[in-house]
């Protein structure tokens, strides 16, 4: 609890401070007002300064699904990730960046992620059959998310995080499958239909929670 208070006080009070890495606590008298500095987080302005820079992450959320990613942190304030994703309907790829204002036990973050699911078989979760099932078996989608969050843990080793924001997602529906759905629901045998590929887009809530481990 004390750690949490120590971390939150500078975050709230530091609104007027200039951007950049947080200063190391100079003295015991100022410890209560300064961020708790992680051992190993050296002052260094260049890339790949001393400390850990590579790791693994695992998270779950929407619309990103479950993700297993590899991480690289060239600077203390920037972390990039890329990996595979799974959402029960299919597999995809994901990547993104996270910006950090400091290296504290509790750190706010700003993340931008993008991903693509090669195929999504949602028919297995429904009781539909025929043309509708064919449509639901092939719905690849792409998303781009912006999220703010909080990270809790050791910035050099293990971090748990929770994020929320918005995601723009788009799905392409196969025209032949759409045609099949309409054709199957027609009442007049003298009518024929032909639909081009359809697009479903949305601005939807996004969230994710997960953890990451820096290995070296």
């Amino acid at each position, binding site marked *: 609890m004390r750690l949490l208070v120590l971390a939150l006080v500078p975050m709230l009070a*530091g*609104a*007027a*401070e*200039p*951007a950049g890495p947080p200063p190391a606590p100079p003295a015991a008298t100022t410890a209560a007002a300064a961020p708790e500095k992680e051992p190993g987080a050296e002052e260094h302005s260049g890339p790949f300064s001393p400390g850990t820079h590579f790791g693994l992450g695992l998270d779950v959320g929407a619309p990103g699904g479950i993700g297993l990613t590899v991480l690289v942190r060239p600077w203390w304030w920037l972390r990039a990730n890329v990996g595979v994703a799974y959402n029960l309907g299919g597999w995809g790829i994901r990547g993104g960046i996270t*910006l*950090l*204002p400091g290296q504290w036990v509790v750190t*706010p973050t*700003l993340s931008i992620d993008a991903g693509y699911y090669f195929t999504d078989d949602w028919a297995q979760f429904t009781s539909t059959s025929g043309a509708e099932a064919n449509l639901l078996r092939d719905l690849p989608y792409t998303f781009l998310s*912006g*999220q*703010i969050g909080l990270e809790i843990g050791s910035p050099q080793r293990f971090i748990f995080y929770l994020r*929320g*924001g*918005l995601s723009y997602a788009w799905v392409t*529906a196969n*025209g032949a499958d*759409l045609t099949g*759905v*309409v054709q*199957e*629901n*027609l*009442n*007049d045998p*003298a*009518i*024929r*239909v*032909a*639909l*081009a*590929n*359809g*697009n*479903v*887009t*949305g*601005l*939807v*809530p996004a969230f994710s929670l997960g953890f990451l481990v820096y290995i070296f």
Partner: protein
Amino acid sequence: MRPETKAALLLASAALAAGCYVKVEDQSVAVTKASICPGGACPPLTSTGGALVIQVDLDLGGADFLQPSTDVGPVTLNNSLNLNQASLAMVTAGTSFAGITLLELVQVPTPTPPGTECAPAGSRVLASYDKATNPAADPRVLTMAGSGTNLLDLTAGTSLIVLRLCAQGGAPPSTSWNADLTLDMALSGKATYP
């Protein structure tokens, strides 16, 4: 205030203020009524000119996304099906629409008013062809430019739209004929929440 904090607050404010939405679009939905005259016997036009009215009942069926509104999980999509153009394609061999000078596709209200008047009260012109301003490159296919009408506004709670093709001009077609009527439309649906 730190730039990162400003950015985070801006994003949070945007998330709260932004209206989330889901949108569905399909730029080409072609619905074809094959052989608009049952039995292959649309009446001919006389060589001296005249008018011809043919009624076509178009049933769009029960597909969810061709209804005025569709429930998708917790949200309701409000759909529209706007007519881009309509085309009449001759299927009878040896004749064409070369003699037709004006052709209109008209929606008539239901129940259909008695008589064979092309556009009774309450009807609406959905698409039109004028040989003088835009002659057909192929006289066997007449393309009528659409007015962009949302056809789902015309179904009155059913899936049926009653249409009339109103032609003016002369022969050909001078013999019994038949044709396919194709409506090329754009589908869109949108739901906003919360």
